[in-house]
């Protein structure tokens, strides 16, 4: 667990990319912001000239794999990866073994997160028992537990039964929860291996058509509006989905949506290598989809960036494409990818990046103490990012347990220099504590 070393004074950082100031924090709270702040005895100084200061990032979609697949990731190793990526809070998805469908499992994950101390780990509860899509899990008990679960998802599996989805949406209203749907019509995607289109047809891999995502999103938006509940759409991957969500928001549906960093930059032609490092669910789509996702994130149709960080051991990817596991890691590269795809292209300002990666995800997940402004009196959850320090991504250099990054060999424009969780450095001088 990282240790506190008393007050920190960050000199010359640019909050949200603005003009340089000093930030002083002590006992987990920001105590002063201004030019040339005096440093009291015992204060540690962090020189931050040229660095951008953002509130700690919040991930609404992380797979920490514990309990069950500790060979791929643990709550501790995943939290360290999160800190390395600038995150101070992550939501641990429910598809563990056993599934996080009881108060016992979510409390275990929550406790492991606290013990690790690198970021706040907010467990996501399963919507249905064992993710089987048959009956509701004890959603209320998970909400009332010490883990205070507010986000419920069968991620990895779609709650495809329309009636069960309706009930889940209604039920979580009692405690201001949200259903995060993995939108995938199961019959249309039986055996699906990649985006259905030119590339899948040429490669002879069974296709995962865009309509299988879009049809579920359209249905769920209508359901959510009908029962007056909150819907969150996980990892939106197609142009059509962006259009449907835009339409749903215009007609007053309380829907939010996320996009992953990989869907903002990678396309399905990478599958031509048959290298399963590019195998993910939902699959990589076309350049047209990537462009629509970027525009959707820019105009607010898509509310947030969420990593869908999905670690897998080497042997799960060193196979034929069709037997390989789905998923890619993303915590440590997310901000760099967003910088490259959204900021360098002029689509988002750093202020908007803060909204998409910190404030909005904290709001959707009802996470207290995160996603707040960098202001006096607020919790000292802070990231320092060097926007002018290009790095080549290397899977072997990851802090997390697994190296299945699809960005390997790619140069990202910047890197995380420091992360503070309530004033405690979890990353300092670009290294995990």
């Amino acid at each position, binding site marked *: 667990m990282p240790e506190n070393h008393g007050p920190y004074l960050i000199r010359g950082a640019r909050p949200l990319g603005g003009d340089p100031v000093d930030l002083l924090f002590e006992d987990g709270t920001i105590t002063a912001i201004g030019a040339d702040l005096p440093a009291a005895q015992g204060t540690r100084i962090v020189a931050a000239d040229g660095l951008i200061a953002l509130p700690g990032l919040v991930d609404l979609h992380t797979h920490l794999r514990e309990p069950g697949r500790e060979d791929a990731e643990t709550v501790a190793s995943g939290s360290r990866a999160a800190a390395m990526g600038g995150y101070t809070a992550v939501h641990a998805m429910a598809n563990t073994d056993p599934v996080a469908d009881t108060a016992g499992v979510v409390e275990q994950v929550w406790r492991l997160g606290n013990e690790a101390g690198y970021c706040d780990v907010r467990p996501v509860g399963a919507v249905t028992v064992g993710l089987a899509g048959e009956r509701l899990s004890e959603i209320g008990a998970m909400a009332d537990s010490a883990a205070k679960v507010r986000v419920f998802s069968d991620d990895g599996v779609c709650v495809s039964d329309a009636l069960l989805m309706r009930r889940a949406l209604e039920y979580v209203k009692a405690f201001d929860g949200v259903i995060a749907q993995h939108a995938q019509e199961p019959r249309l995607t039986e055996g699906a291996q990649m985006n259905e289109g030119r590339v899948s*047809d040429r490669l*002879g*891999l069974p*296709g995962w058509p865009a309509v299988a995502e879009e049809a579920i999103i359209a249905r769920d938006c209508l359901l959510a509006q009908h029962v007056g509940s909150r819907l969150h759409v996980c990892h939106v991957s197609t142009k059509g989905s962006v259009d449907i969500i835009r339409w749903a928001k215009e007609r007053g549906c309380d829907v939010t949506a996320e996009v992953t960093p990989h869907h903002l930059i990678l396309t399905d032609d990478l599958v031509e290598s*048959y290298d399963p490092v590019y195998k993910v669910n939902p699959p990589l789509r076309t350049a047209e989809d990537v462009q629509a996702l970027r525009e959707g994130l820019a105009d607010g149709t898509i509310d947030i960036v969420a990593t869908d960080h999905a670690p897998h051991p080497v042997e799960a990817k*060193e*196979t*034929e*494409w069709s037997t390989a596991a789905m998923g890619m890691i993303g915590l440590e590269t997310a901000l760099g990818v967003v910088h490259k795809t959204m900021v360098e292209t002029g689509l988002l300002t750093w202020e908007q990046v803060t909204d998409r990666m910190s404030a909005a995800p904290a709001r959707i997940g009802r996470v207290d103490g995160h996603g707040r402004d960098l202001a006096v009196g607020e919790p000292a959850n802070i990231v320092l990012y060097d926007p002018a320090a290009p790095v080549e991504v290397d899977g072997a250099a990851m802090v997390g347990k697994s190296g299945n990054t699809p960005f390997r060999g790619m140069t990202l424009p910047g890197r995380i220099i420091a992360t503070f969780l309530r004033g405690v450095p979890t990353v300092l001088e670009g290294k995990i504590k």
Partner: protein
Amino acid sequence: MRHLLSTGDLSRDEATLILDTATELAQVGDRSVKKLPTLRGRTVVNLFYEDSTRTRTSFELAAKRLSADVINFSAKGSSVSKGESLKDTALTLQAMGADGVVIRHSASGAPHRLAGWVDGSVLNAGDGTHEHPTQALLDAFTMRSRLGRLEGLRVAVVGDILHSRVARSNVLLLTTLGAQVTLVAPPTLLPVSVYTWPCEVSYDLDEVLPKADVVMMLRVQAERMRDSFFPSVREYSRNYGLDGERLGRMPADAIVMHPGPMVRGMEISAEVADSPRCTVTEQVANGVSLRMAVLYLLLGGS
């Protein structure tokens, strides 16, 4: 050429060289001693994850006629059935000094993965629903032998295009060699993006037949009916099966091809299958020469 993974990787010159080499090597099959010393001391492994006596035997015979040492490694009863990964199998073959690996696998792209793990040449002998390059090459060889040319030849490929590795390899290769391909199938058995392929598409076999120099029938598995790709075997056969009457509507010198195994009564009637215009057994014989050519060109150089 180091590997043969896809016919899409072949230039027109390379494809023509393979066909010309096969023509030369075919003469070996006519001699009383059917053997050349070309690949003496070289090791070829037949790595078959799917049962295919026809293709495996063809490769085995081709390698033996070139005097290579041949090892048959089938998935059943080997370490593979005990859960060994493709990578570990590849490293094992590598350690044994395989110069060439002929792989048949149910997973599309398995030969691509294998090529990344071994130093030797990898020959794709059929991978999932992706490609079957030597089948397309032997088909082109057969067309050229029978009809004397490939340029401008009108080839109709009929049947389950969606699930066919033979169709994919043939579309790419025949286009490279200057033939005009028309795919004929019910819409359910065509890929969604087929309109982007370098070929024509038709849902109407009867319209295509009179304009075809070659009609290549593909096997249609009855289980596709259970997955609602078509309503019944009879309806499929009525619309897309090749019978004597339809054969009569083809140009007089047009030929009927089939990669085998045929399902008589489904996509092809017994009358057509046994007709002298049907080249099925010729294709099998040509397969050996063609595979000799590929092995020779991939392994014979160094």
